[in-house]
């Protein structure tokens, strides 16, 4: 993990002796849950938010990125290892330094709600940003649930309960939830835990629209809401004073759908919450003037090694293989068929010759 000293740390003194300890308190998971090539725009959405968040200082160890399908190295991508968010291939959001934690079939509701590995180690001082994009149940006449991989779904009640559990276990300080799907507002209707702020790209009953198609790639590149969100975030830098009210109004006047927001559960006034509280990294630095003693590593003595002549193994020892006997691992009692056959033979024998021969045999 690279320690970057940005101006928030306030540390420019070159004469420091000792360890520099920076902690970051923001943990944003980015999640994209739909498959198939025509959902290219969902990957572009997620990666643009991921990029902004990394640019504003959050390290990869504090980001969980889940992408349900591979668009960059998909055989249909005319420019491999790239994902573009602007048409005419201007802006490659995939970059050279991306780390995807969950990809392909690993993106499931279970891994989202209770990951067994690669999880966020957040505590009660962490601010968490969750960005979801995908498809909700719109064409099938329902709202209030989000489809995972076309085969599973998560309902708004499950999400609300998951956040409540996190609150009970003191896993977050404040949480910002952004969702870019059709009828996105239905997903945050049921939230009841404190310190939650939610933004959605469309109200219940409305569809979220995609922004621009690219004729070379053949699909839509991004969704409208995230496009304007990205434009807004590109102007934010680590020391910016932009606050949540600016974020909430980012898309209101430009497009035909009306994004929603839910700030009732948030205790602070949204106007006083900085964007960088969620999107950027606050690093606390502790300076010490003590010297550190580093002991050199112990050379393992060559006297410890056995002085047997070590050799390489033959890669294809034909003679050895031919004479290799199959290993009999366990002794199994004889098969029922064999037992039955022997019983039959003995029975027939004693039937024919009489029981008096028994003493000659045993």
């Amino acid at each position, binding site marked *: 993990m690279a320690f970057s000293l940005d101006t928030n740390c306030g540390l420019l003194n*070159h*004469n*420091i*002796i*000792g360890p*520099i300890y920076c902690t970051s308190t923001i943990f944003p998971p980015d999640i994209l849950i739909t*498959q*198939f090539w025509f959902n290219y725009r969902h990957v572009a959405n997620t990666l643009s938010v991921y990029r902004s968040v990394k640019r504003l200082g959050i390290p990869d160890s504090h980001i969980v990125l889940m992408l349900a399908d*591979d668009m*960059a*190295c998909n055989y249909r991508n005319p*420019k*491999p*290892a*790239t994902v573009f968010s602007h048409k005419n291939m201007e802006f*490659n959001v*995939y*970059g*050279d*330094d*991306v*780390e*995807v934690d969950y*990809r*392909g*079939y*690993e993106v499931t509701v279970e891994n989202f709600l209770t990951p067994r*590995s*690669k999880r966020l180690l957040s505590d009660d001082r962490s601010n968490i940003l969750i960005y979801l994009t995908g498809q909700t149940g719109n064409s099938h006449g329902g709202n209030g649930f989000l489809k995972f*991989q*076309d*085969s599973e779904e998560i309902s708004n009640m499950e999400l609300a309960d998951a956040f409540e559990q996190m609150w009970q276990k003191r896993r977050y300080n404040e949480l910002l939830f952004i969702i870019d799907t059709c009828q996105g507002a239905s997903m945050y209707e049921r939230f009841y835990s404190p310190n939650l702020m939610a933004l959605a790209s469309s109200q219940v009953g409305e569809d979220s629209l995609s922004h621009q198609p690219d004729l070379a790639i053949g699909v839509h590149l991004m969704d409208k809401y995230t496009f304007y969100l990205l434009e807004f975030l590109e102007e934010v830098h680590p020391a910016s004073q932009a606050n949540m009210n600016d974020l909430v109004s980012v898309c209101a006047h430009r497009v035909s759908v009306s994004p929603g927001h839910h700030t009732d559960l948030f205790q602070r006034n949204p106007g006083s919450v900085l964007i960088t509280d969620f999107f950027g990294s606050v690093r606390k630095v502790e300076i010490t003037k003590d*010297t*550190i*003693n*580093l*002991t*050199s*590593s*112990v*050379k*393992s003595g*060559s006297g*410890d*090694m056995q*002085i047997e*002549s*070590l*050799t*390489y*193994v*033959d*890669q*294809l*020892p*034909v003679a050895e*293989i*031919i004479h*290799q006997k*199959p290993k009999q691992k366990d002794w199994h009692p004889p098969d029922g068929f064999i037992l039955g056959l022997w019983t039959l033979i003995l029975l027939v024998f004693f039937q024919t010759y009489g029981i008096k021969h028994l003493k000659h045999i045993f």
Partner: protein
Amino acid sequence: AAFLLNDGTKNGETFAPAKDQFQEELVIRPLHSGDIYASFQFRTLWDTDFLQEGQKKVSHYRLFPKSLGQVLSKFSVQELHISFTQGFWRTMQWGQPFIPSPPGAELWVWFHDTVSDVDGNWKELTNVLSGIFCASLNFIDMTNTVQPSASFKPLGLGNATDHRFLRYATLPREIVCTENLTPWKKLLPCGSKAGLAVLMKSEKLFHSSFHSQAVHIRPICQDEQCTSKAWELRQTLNVVFDHYTSGQGKKEWSLFKMFSRTLTEACPLASSSKVYVDITDNPELFELSPATPLLSQAVVLGDRRTYSVYDLTRAETFGQLRSFNLLLRWKGDNMLRPLLHAERYVAGFGLQTGEIHTVIYNNHPYRAFPVLLMDSVPWYLQLYIHTLTVTSKSRDNKPSYIHYQPAKDRHRPHLLEMLIQLPPHSMTEVTVQFERALLKWTEYTPDPNHGFYVGSSVVSALVPSMVAMSTNFTQDQPLFSSFVPVKEESSYFVRVYTEPLLVNLPTPDFSMPYNVICLTCTVVAVGYGSFYNLLTRTFQVDEPSPPLAKRLANFIRRIRGVPLLA
């Protein structure tokens, strides 16, 4: 920031740091079809013992990456080989690769013989590696892991021939992309900032016909007498650029065209940093510039090849412009005949049965040699081993060794290993019939109509060499020719991977309206409907109205006062 280092001196003894060295190398081999094959090899050698506990436990890492060192000591790994490949190696067009790998991800590990629970270690190891390489290696479990009994002998030192400590698994579906390259590059001592690794730009590397990155860790001899051993970490990246897709149709290559970068310096931590260009076919096939007087000969894959060597640790290589760019221009066309070649396909029709055919070609004009074929088939393709036939030149060829471990449903895949003697200049065909199983509905992937993958077969062989090979193992040998230890001079060991298979299993119809409508209507009509009728329906006798004649007759009878008709 400055740290004050205090060298620990105890009782007048001075501790010398453990010796480690790093070498990097790039081999460029122009292929006969006009494509170009670039193979990067980065080797870190470290004289230490990972399996020590307590006071001597390794905790200071310099060139060797710490994440891998911790993995080796925690899981008592003796040898680890992992590769991620996108694309399939076309042996007929490109010859043999320096280090072969199957499409998808492949992991095989030899554990130390002190390990008591190999399966537990294996499971944890795959999870840790999946986090390190950002890949879905956690999908490796007992249903796709096998223990080969004769293939995959250790490539490093060791006398472990007990195959209980070997585990092998492939994930043919695994995608390789920038997120796998990024952590792989971070394991290098210079990262991607200096040396040969600056050439690794993902936009160019993935726009290729074949891309394979691998990590190989094994203990090797430090010197010729082999009195002590050292750990070797080899990171290899093989890429083949196609002159149609990335070359815009022109058979002309340069470093800048391949990687969109040129070299400006060697990695400062490397003890040797070289670029080798295979000029054996120069000048008939292509011409190379800038020319260099440094030449080196090596016997690789049974053939003596000449290489132009460019040493990046010397400033003259970079010339006036401080940048090094190679240029190769093709002149002729030539066909290639590799000695050993294998392919595999599925025959049959329908979704019930099928047949797997594996075809192995021996193109040597007069020598026969043995090959070891290893097949690992998932449990949902139920093989009928009694239909296994091996034919060469339309005659039955009986294998000298067969090891078959049948599959257990949802628990273990099939493992079939056979040692077959290939007659000279022949084609050998191995066929086995199978039946497709019907899976439970939760076991289908979210896109089941794509099909299910079957991992590549592995053909390991000792191919007779046309040139005598040296069995001495020196440190100065170029890295690409010293990967496989050579035991005898007249043949070299090679591994060929076949294509993975994609089979369709009988898939239920997952479409939602169909299921909902059918099920709901059936339940309502048959279940609830009949029950409701049973509980509430009463029967009443209802007399139909009599026909006209009868009505008339009854009318007359009523008038007469006589009893009516029924």
